[in-house]
């Protein structure tokens, strides 16, 4: 901050924002990037399930038939219908609260996963699947609501870091293509600039829209300025009707499949993705059908509500004005549900670029201060946390996948054990790495992470009948892609380990070859 120009002050704050939030942001970027393949990871983690594509109306009907058999008097049934990426119908149901006001609220039921064709519960290993990375990405495995607040704080730091970074980096277009290896600090600055500048639209978009995904929690005050009751805003904005008290008059729920087909016809063939049934089998029953996000950029999808007693069309979500549509598109841009395979991979690579930007920024901080005679406490702390985040988190993620294959498929509580495997590996490895000198720790942790990822296809081949040779024979695109991605990630981490093992030798040679530059080049001062 000390300095008079706007560039100096922005450089100073850029450094602090990145340093304070950097490690959490690295984890958020990496797990968020993985979450672009959330349904695919879930399918990989339940290898015993085979894909049987089923139309949304049939899946909805089979799910309702099952719910009618097990809990017909619930307050709410929420059905998440399968599509070409998910092969299970996911159901959340809520029992009616005890009318006695002193009675405890009914316990939350776990998610129910059904075979869309038969409506019977799926018999597959218990796992959180890709949902785990997705949830961690914005909840950080911290109790609600603190994880979301911490993620939001880091996101606003990221936004500040992006704005201040752009102001700081005056030579944005000159350095566009410049990446030089083996030059110590200069190389890290190059890598940070390249990964930040080339994908700047993505970084700015993903940070801002990330805040927008939880805006109702982070910034509800504009609602209170305009609405005495927040529920009125939700009704006006998203067409969410306030919950209706059941009449108590029993009227059997109408068949659901014709309603799903009617909604789809009204959307000119748009798919249904979710069905919410309030007060089933009551005269006040309503069936709200929500359109699939893959059809539009706007993730706040249209919905139509029907009467569950006689099938009449009651209402549809209101047409969105410019502001609500902007918010919906921002949400859609963040989650990328609209993206087909090509765009999804583009998103994935952009997410890796963002992860690289955060990681190289953290490494730049240490590279810049390495020349000091005695490493001070802050330097050692940052270096150790860098190792813990950048080298050890990937190992933890690989452990999560390996645990899925190694923990017996029918063991009780195995889903939580998979999650525990990730955190024990991540933090355990980070703790163990303290026993090694920093440079060794880098090499060894990255090597362990690389080996762990390389082991995933092997363990998969040994424990399932869907290894790479079989997948190639059967043309199982998902499993081929997954195995190849694991090998690519292992290669990348292995390359990192190899570089980490030889970096100092190169610098020493350079130092003996020519006298060290004592005054930093002007560009270096830029990103200080």
């Amino acid at each position, binding site marked *: 901050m000390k300095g008079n120009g706007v560039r100096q002050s922005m450089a100073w704050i850029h450094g602090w924002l990145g340093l304070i939030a950097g490690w959490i942001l690295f984890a958020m970027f990496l797990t968020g990037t993985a979450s672009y393949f959330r349904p695919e990871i879930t399918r990989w983690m339940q290898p015993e399930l085979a894909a049987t594509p089923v139309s949304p109306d049939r899946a909805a009907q089979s799910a309702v038939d099952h719910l009618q058999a097990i809990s017909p008097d619930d307050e709410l049934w929420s059905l998440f219908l399968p599509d070409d990426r998910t092969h299970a119908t996911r159901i959340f149901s809520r029992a009616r609260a005890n009318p006695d006001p002193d009675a405890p609220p009914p316990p939350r039921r776990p998610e129910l996963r059904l075979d869309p064709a038969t409506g019977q519960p799926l018999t597959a290993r218990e796992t959180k699947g890709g949902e785990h990375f997705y949830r961690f990405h914005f909840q950080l495995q911290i109790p609600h609501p603190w994880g979301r607040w911490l993620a939001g704080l880091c996101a606003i730091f990221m936004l500040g870091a992006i704005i201040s970074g752009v102001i700081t980096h005056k030579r944005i277009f000159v350095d566009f293509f410049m990446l030089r290896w083996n030059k110590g600090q200069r190389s890290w600055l190059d890598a940070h600039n390249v990964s930040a500048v080339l994908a700047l639209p993505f970084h700015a978009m993903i940070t801002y829209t990330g805040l*927008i995904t939880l805006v109702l929690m982070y910034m509800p005050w504009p609602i209170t300025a305009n609405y005495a009751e927040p529920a009125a805003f939700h009704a006006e904005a998203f067409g969410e009707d306030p919950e209706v008290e059941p009449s108590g008059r029993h009227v059997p729920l109408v068949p659901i499949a014709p309603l799903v087909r009617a909604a789809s016809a009204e959307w000119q063939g748009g798919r249904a993705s979710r069905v919410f049934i309030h007060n089933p089998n009551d005269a006040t029953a309503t069936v709200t059908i929500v359109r699939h996000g893959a059809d539009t950029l706007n993730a706040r999808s249209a919905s139509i509500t029907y009467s569950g007693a006689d099938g009449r069309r009651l209402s549809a979500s209101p047409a969105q004005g410019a502001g609500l549509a902007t918010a919906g598109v*921002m949400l859609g841009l963040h989650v990328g549900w609209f993206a087909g395979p090509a765009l999804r991979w583009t998103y994935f690579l952009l997410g890796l670029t963002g992860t690289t930007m955060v990681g190289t920024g953290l490494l730049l901080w240490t590279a810049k201060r390495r020349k000091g005679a005695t490493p001070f406490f802050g330097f050692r702390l940052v270096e150790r946390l860098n190792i813990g985040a950048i080298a050890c988190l990937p190992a933890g993620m690989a452990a999560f996948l390996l645990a899925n294959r190694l923990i017996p498929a029918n063991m009780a509580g195995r889903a939580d054990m998979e999650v525990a495997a990730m955190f024990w590996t991540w933090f355990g490895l980070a703790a163990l790495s303290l026993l090694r000198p920093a440079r060794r720790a880098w090499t060894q942790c990255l090597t362990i992470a690389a080996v762990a990822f390389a082991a995933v296809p092997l363990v998969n081949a040994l424990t399932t009948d869907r290894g790479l040779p079989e997948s190639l024979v059967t043309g199982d695109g998902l499993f081929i892609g997954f195995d190849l991605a694991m090998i690519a990630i292992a290669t990348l981490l292995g390359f990192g380990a190899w570089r980490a093992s030889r970096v100092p030798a190169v610098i020493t040679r350079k130092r003996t070859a020519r006298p060290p530059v004592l005054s930093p080049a002007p560009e270096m001062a830029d990103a200080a």
Partner: protein
Amino acid sequence: MTGRAVRTHMVARCATALVGGYAAAAGIASLIARLLPVPRVEATAWGMILSFLIYACFGLWAFHQPRLSVVAAVIWGSAALSIAALFLLGVRA
């Protein structure tokens, strides 16, 4: 300034940026939502969308302006004024 005074100033500056910046952003975004001459649901959406940009700008400016008194006056002042205005205006009819 002594080291202690520098630290106190920095703590005050950080608190102003983080807490005051949030309060000011919330107040101004809500004022936008309250006053924008479009349907209230739309105005609410625009207020929420713009809030984070306002927050980020306040936060960065808090570390650019060298004089802490100016930072504190502008940020806490904006927060107080906008929130007071909201109370005077009341909820939109």
